[in-house]
C-alpha cells in the first residue's frame, strides 16, 4: 500500500495483522507515535548480543506437567452467560463465516 513513503512502518498493514479496524485519524497518529517509540527501542542495536541466549521467562521452568484428570471447573451456563449472543443459551452465536450461504 503506502509504497511511496520513507516510513518503515506500514501502520495499515500492522492494523490488519492485529485485526483492528481503525479510523484514518488514528492510523496517522499511530504512524508518528510508533515511529517515535521504535526509534527509541532501537537503542538495543548498540549492544553486541552475539552468543547470548535469549531469556523467555524470569523463571526457567520447562515441561511443567500435571496429572490428566478430567474436571468441570466452570458450569456451561456461567461461561455462556458472558457470550454476546447465543443460540437458545446452548451455543455461542457467531456471525456468518462462509460467504454465500443463507443465515439460518
Amino acid at each position, binding site marked *: 500500500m503506502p509504497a511511496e513513503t520513507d516510513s518503515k512502518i506500514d501502520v495499515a498493514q500492522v492494523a490488519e495483522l*492485529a*485485526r483492528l479496524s481503525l479510523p484514518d485519524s488514528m492510523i496517522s497518529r499511530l504512524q508518528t507515535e510508533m515511529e517515535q517509540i521504535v526509534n527509541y527501542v532501537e537503542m*538495543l542495536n548498540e549492544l553486541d548480543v552475539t552468543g547470548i541466549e535469549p531469556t523467555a521467562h524470569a523463571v526457567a521452568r520447562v515441561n511443567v506437567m500435571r496429572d490428566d484428570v478430567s474436571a468441570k471447573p466452570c458450569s456451561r451456563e456461567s461461561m455462556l452467560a458472558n457470550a454476546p449472543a447465543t443460540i437458545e443459551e446452548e451455543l455461542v452465536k457467531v456471525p456468518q463465516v462462509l460467504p454465500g450461504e443463507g443465515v439460518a
Partner: protein
Amino acid sequence: MSMISGMTIREAVEALASGSLSSSALCSAYLERIQAVEPRVKALLAINPESVMAQAQASDVRRAAGQPLSPFDGIPVTLKDNICSSGEQCSCASKILQGFTSPYDAFVVGKLKSAGCVLMGRANMDEFAMGSSCENSACQKTANPWNLKCVPGGSSGGSAASVAACETMAALGSDTGGSIRQPAAFCGVVGLKPTYGRVSRNGLVAFASSLDQIGPFTRTVWDSAALFSLIAGFDEKDSTSLPQDSFDFAGDLTSFEKNPRLDGMKIGLPKEYFEVEGMDDGVKQVVMDSIAQFKSLGAEFVDVSLPHTKYAMACYYIIATAEASANLARFDGIRYGYRSPNATDINSTYEKSRGEGFGPEVLRRIMLGTYVLSSGYYDAYYLRAQKVRTLLRQDFTDAFKQCDILLTPVTPAVAFEFGAKADPLQMYLSDVFTTALNLSGNCGISVPAALEPASGLPVGIQLIAPPMEEQRIFRAGHAFELARPQKTFLAPLS
C-alpha cells in the same frame, strides 16, 4: 475519619482476636469512609455494600463460634479490576469487557476467601494494566488522595488510592513494569512486587505473561508481609508457579522486631539509578536521608553497577507489547466481551469489536507488539530484546554477589498532575526504575520514606532482593519504617 478506617491489618487482627472489634464494625466504618471520600478520589469501579456487610457478618458469626478461618478472618481487601472473583465484574477498566462476570475465582481470591477476608470491591486501573497514571482507564480518572490535582500512578492506581484514602485496609494489584510499586510510591503506601512465579497468575487477566505478578498494597511492611503470606504458594493451574510453599513472613517480622537492627546487611546502590536525567532534587534528598537512616540501623553500603540499566525500558517495551498483542488476541467479540453492532461478517466482527472496544493506549501497544513480532522484524526486535533481557538478569546476579539487597528510588519524581505526560514515550519513561525487576524476576518493595518538602507529596524508596528472598526486603523495610522520622502516612483528605 473514624479511628477504625486508619487501622493497619496488624492492629485489626489483634482487635478482632480480642473481641474489641467486629468485622461488621470494621467494614461499616470503611463503607462510611467510601461514602465520604469516594466522590473526590474515584478509586473504585464497583462496591456492593450489602455483599460487604454480609461477608463481615458471616465472619463475625464464625468468630463468635470460636471458628475463625484464619487470624485474618474479617479483614477487608479490595481487588484491582483485572483479578477474577466469581460472580463479580472484571472489566480491566476497558469498554471491551463491560458487563463481563467472572465465572471463577482467581487463585489469590480463593486464598483470601479461605482465610475469611472480606472482598471490598473493584479498584480502577489503566485499561488492561497499561499505563502509569490511571488516566488510561475507560471508566473514570482516579485522583491522588494527597493532592486531588495529581494522578495516583498506575496501572494499579485505584488499589493504591483506595488504601491511601483509607477506603480499605489493603488491596491487591498487579505489577508488569512497576504497576504496584510506582502507584504505591505516589500514594504513600507500601507496595510489593513478589518474585516472578511466587504468586499464581491464574485468574489474573494477562497483559504480559512473563512479567505479570500479583502483589499487595498495604499501610505498613508488616501488613504487606502478612497479605503476601496469604496469597503466595504453588498453583498447578499456573505453569510458571514456583513449587515453593508460602511462609509466615509477618511472624518473622514480629520476632525480628525484638531487635530490629540491620548489622551485617550489605545494601548495594546501583550507580546507574542515581545518574538518571530528570531526577527531582527533592526525591534525591529523600533517598539520601533514607540511606543515612539505614546506616544508623547498622547496614553497610556498597556501590554496585547494573550496566545495562539504560536498555531496560527499550527491552521492556518490546517484550511487554509483544506478549500483550498475543494475549489480547482473545478479545475478539465472539465468546465474551463487547461485540460491535456495526459488523457484517466474521472479519469485521473481529476488527470492529477490537477497534471500537480498546482504548488508545491498548491499541498502541497491540500495534507495537504486532509490529515487533511480524515477519521480517522478529529477530531484530523481539529476539534481540530477549537476549538483552539475559544481560539485564545477569546484571542483577552479579550485583547480588556484592550485597544482600539494593536500594533505589521508585520514581524519578513525585506524582504529576493530570495531563502532564500526554506523550506516550514520556509516560513510559516514568517507570525507569521499576521495569528491570520484572524482566529479571527479582522481588521489590516500595516503602514510603518521607514527604517531599516542595510538593508535600510522598516519596518512596525501592528495596530489591534476589528471587525468593522477600524476607530480606521485608526485614529491611520494617526496620526502616520503625526508624524513619515520619511514622505514618495518612493522606490529608478531610
